[in-house]
Structures are given as C-alpha cells and as structure tokens.
C-alpha cells in the first residue's frame, strides 16, 4: 500500500505550469489543425481577386464569417465534417481536397476565384447550400481566400484557364435534333435517363468520390426554376458538361464534343426541362412537339434525313 504524502510545493507549481502550457498548446492547435490527406502544412494566408476586389484570408471578419456561417457544415478544419454534416445529403464539400464541382476550368484543374465566388452567391440547387446573398462582395471575396487556405494545392498549382465558350448560335429545331442525337450517342441517358428524369440504368449505382450515393440531375423535375448545380443560363449548362463536375460521376466532354455541337446539346437539354418557358420549348411546340430525327452524313455534315436513328436498348420508346 502506497503511503499518502502531501505533494511538495515544487511539484504542485510544476504541474500547474505544465497544465497551463498544455492548455495554450491545445488552443493553438485549434487554430492550425492538421487535416485529412492534405496536412495543413504552412496554412499560409491566401488572397482572392474578384474583378477589382481583393479578398484576404486574414481579413478582420472572415474567420468570424466562416465559423458563423460555413463551419456548421464544412467544419472548422474545412474538411466537410461540420456538426451538421451527418444529417446532410449530399455531403458538404471537403475543402482540403480542393476538388470543386462548379468550375469554368478543365476537369482536374483548380477553379478560378470567380468560380468559387459565384458558387457562394448562387448556392447549390438540390443541396443544403443556400445562396449567400446577404454577404457583401468583399465578404464573399474574403471567404474565397479563406477556403483556399485549407489545401496546399492552392499554393502549388494555378487555376486552369477557363474553357473557351463560342457565341451561342440560334436555337433551331435542327440544333435541338442534333442535340438529341448527341444525348443518345454520348450516352448521357445512361445516368440522366432517356427523358432526362435522372432515372437512367446507371443512376442507382452512382457514388461521389467519397463513396456517398449521388443522384443524377433530373431535368424534368427541376424545370420549375430551371436552376442547375452550377448556374441557370445556357452558358452555365455548356460549362457543366464541358468541364465536368469534379468529385462526382459527371465527366468532362471537352475532348469529345466540338464547341458548335456542344451548343446543340445545350438546346436539347433545355427541352428536357418540359415545364420551363423558354425559346427551346417554344420552337419545339412550333414543331408540334416532334423532334425530327438526325443522321450523320459520312462527311460529318449535319443533315435531316430519314430514317430515324434507333435509340440503344434501354433508351425507351419515344
């Protein structure tokens, strides 16, 4: 049995000093944590440039804004493990991976500052990320800079060059027809479904890069407000399939689709939004709801001719 003896004063002082030192070390660790597969080595200050606005990751308010408005889902460490994350589907973005869906840059490349800035202001439809319209432009720019501190990738790599987008040609029943041909040929329907309802044969098996189930976009259901994950305009739609949504099953078609053809696909995707009032659906209505079949001439010229191309099995009857 050990004898109980009063602790010498020296020991008491020493233990107090030690525990104080641990407390200090603990709080310092909270500020500069190590995260995920990218240890946050040298989590140095970052800047962002949005037009004439320069954002700073160490601006007076940004940490407050991040902790107050973002960390609940994205986590104080930026790893997507905020306290709400368990309840969310899809899961919040993990900033330590520096992989982003909505980019103007090619697949595999970092987004531009403006891409991130726009995502904050726009929110992500069909997720819990709302449009943060209450922030000033400066606040958003600072948050963009702050988000960039979570991955060392932002110090090592430059964002890609935005993909070129040629001017949109006129919407015609021919462009819609050719778009439909591409939708079939490029097998967009395998995930998005023959009618764009997000119910293609591969839809139920899809997972994102963190092995979380993910649903393909349902064009028909989402047609009320016509918002896409990464925007609302035809240009946004063009960007989505040419850049791909990194971190998700949606690949880039930039190497596959010629820019002119890409606009035709945009025009067809718009008619999948069956309830959306818009030029594409007006033109389809004027053609009595019939999309004429498209066949490719041997020389690659676009043409309208019979007979109809047969949709692959699984495409359904139309």
């Amino acid at each position, binding site marked *: 049995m050990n004898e109980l003896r009063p602790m010498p004063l020296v020991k008491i002082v020493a233990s107090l000093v030690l525990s104080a030192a641990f407390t200090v070390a603990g709080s310092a660790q909270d500020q500069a944590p190590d995260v995920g597969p*990218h240890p946050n080595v040298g989590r140095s200050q970052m800047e962002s440039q949005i037009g004439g606005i320069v954002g700073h990751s160490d601006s007076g308010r940004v940490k407050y804004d991040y902790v107050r408005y973002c960390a609940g889902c994205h986590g104080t460490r930026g790893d997507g493990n905020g306290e709400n994350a368990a309840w969310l589907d899809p899961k919040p973005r993990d900033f330590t*991976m520096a992989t982003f869906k909505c980019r103007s840059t090619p*697949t595999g*490349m970092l987004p531009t500052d403006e891409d991130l800035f726009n995502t904050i202001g726009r929110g992500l439809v069909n997720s819990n990320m709302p449009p943060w319209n209450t922030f000033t432009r400066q606040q958003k720019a600072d948050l963009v800079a702050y988000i960039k501190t979570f991955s060392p990738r932002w110090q090592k790599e430059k964002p890609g060059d935005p993909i070129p987008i040629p001017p949109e040609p006129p919407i015609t029943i021919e462009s819609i027809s050719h778009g439909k041909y591409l939708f079939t040929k490029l*097998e967009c329907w395998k995930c998005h479904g023959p009618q764009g309802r997000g119910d293609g044969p591969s839809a139920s098996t899809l997972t994102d890069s963190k092995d979380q189930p993910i649903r393909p976009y349902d064009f028909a259901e989402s047609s009320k407000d016509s918002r896409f994950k990464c925007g609302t305009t035809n240009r946004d739609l063009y960007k989505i399939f040419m850049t791909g949504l990194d971190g*998700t099953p949606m690949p880039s078609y930039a190497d596959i689709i010629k820019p002119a053809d890409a606009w035709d696909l945009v025009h067809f995707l718009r008619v999948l939004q069956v309830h959306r009032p818009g030029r594409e659906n007006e033109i389809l209505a004027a053609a009595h709801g019939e999309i004429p079949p498209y066949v490719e001439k041997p020389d690659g010229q676009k043409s309208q001719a019979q007979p109809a191309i047969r949709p692959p099995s699984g495409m359904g009857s139309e």
Partner: protein
Amino acid sequence: MHWKKLYAAVFVIALCPAMTFAGSITGKVTYTGNPAKPHPIDMSREPSCKAQYRTPPVSETVVTGPGNTLQNVLVYISQGADDANPPAQAVTLTQKGCRYVPHVIALHTGQDLDVVNEDRTSHNVHPEPQVNREWNKSQPPGAAPIRVKFDQPEFILVKCNLHPWMRGWLAVLKTNHYAITGENGTFTLPDLKPGKYTITAWQEDYGTKTADVTITGNETKNVDFTFVAHP
C-alpha cells in the same frame, strides 16, 4: 595510342551494365487462409460487353492461382533504387469488355499513361486520387486515347461511373523497378545494382508487405511474400 585507349575505355563502359546490373530479385506471392470467392459480374446492362464473355466474368479484387498463389500483386522497390526519371514510353490502360486491362497497372511519376477504349460503349475514366488531381473524362467508342500523367506517387483507384463493376488500379511509383505477379504468382525484379533494397508487395485488398534485400553482385535473391487472406 591515345585514341585506342579511349576506344577501349568506351568499350568497357558499354559492357558495364551487363556486368554490374546483373543482380535480381525473384519470388512468389502466396496466401494463407480463405480468400473471398470471386463473384460473377452481371453485365446484362451492357450487352456489347456481355457478349464478349462465354461465361460471366468474375471480380478481380483477389485473383488466385494454383498452389495458393496470388495474381495482380504489385512488387516494387520502395527504397534503395535510384531511378528518378520516368521512361519516355507511355503505358497503356485498355478498357475492354467493360473491364480494365490490366487490372493493376504500374507507372512512374511523370510517365505518360494512355487510356484506350476498345469497347463499343462509352466509358468515363474517373481516377479517384487523394494526393494527385482528380479528373473525370468521357470516352465514347472510337475516341482518341486519353493521355495523362500523375505527379505524386500514389495507388489510385480508377472507376467508370457508367459501369459500377469496373474498378482498376493505377500504381504511381517513384521507381521503374517493379513487377506484377501473373498467373503463377511469381515476379522478377531484374537489373539491380549491388546495394540494400526494400521491396514492397501490394495487394489491393490485403495491403502491403515489405522485405529488406541486399544484392552484392551478380546474384539472384529469392524473396517470397505471404498474405493473410480474408473472406
């Protein structure tokens, strides 16, 4: 006289690789225990792929051979080799019959990888790295090969989201000294200078095993690896 000496020296140097790099490591990879039975893959959803098989193809996570041998195990020099430069020649990963051929492919950091689609269906090529850049590209039938490189050493799972059974591995290494075991589970790492080496065997489901080997000259060292299989 002077020139003759030089020629002689050049001749001797030219012979050197054959003389000094003659060490090699060879061995066999086996398992103990009971590995999971490979399960047949139902490719009915992709008739053009299904038609390429007489019997349904099976999963390739663990491929065993006669005598408890393991196929598709990557064996490489993880320490001691000094080849910093990637080979100029590209390695090719082929999508055929809705599978990745080969199932495990190794390449050097910075080496070109060509991804080829030989199927009559689209694939999307979607590597899911943790330290390299993630990207995802569609590749319809007849499309040009996708040529890429990876900067950082990493074992990268590659997927096709259209065909969820498709899973392959890209082993990005800092060495050109590697081998992947074939049907009989054997491997050979040739052309090794004398020196101390650590060799690593990696099986996608069972993880890694390492061994230290010293090569002293023109010799072949035998190193076998045994993994503990689990169902």
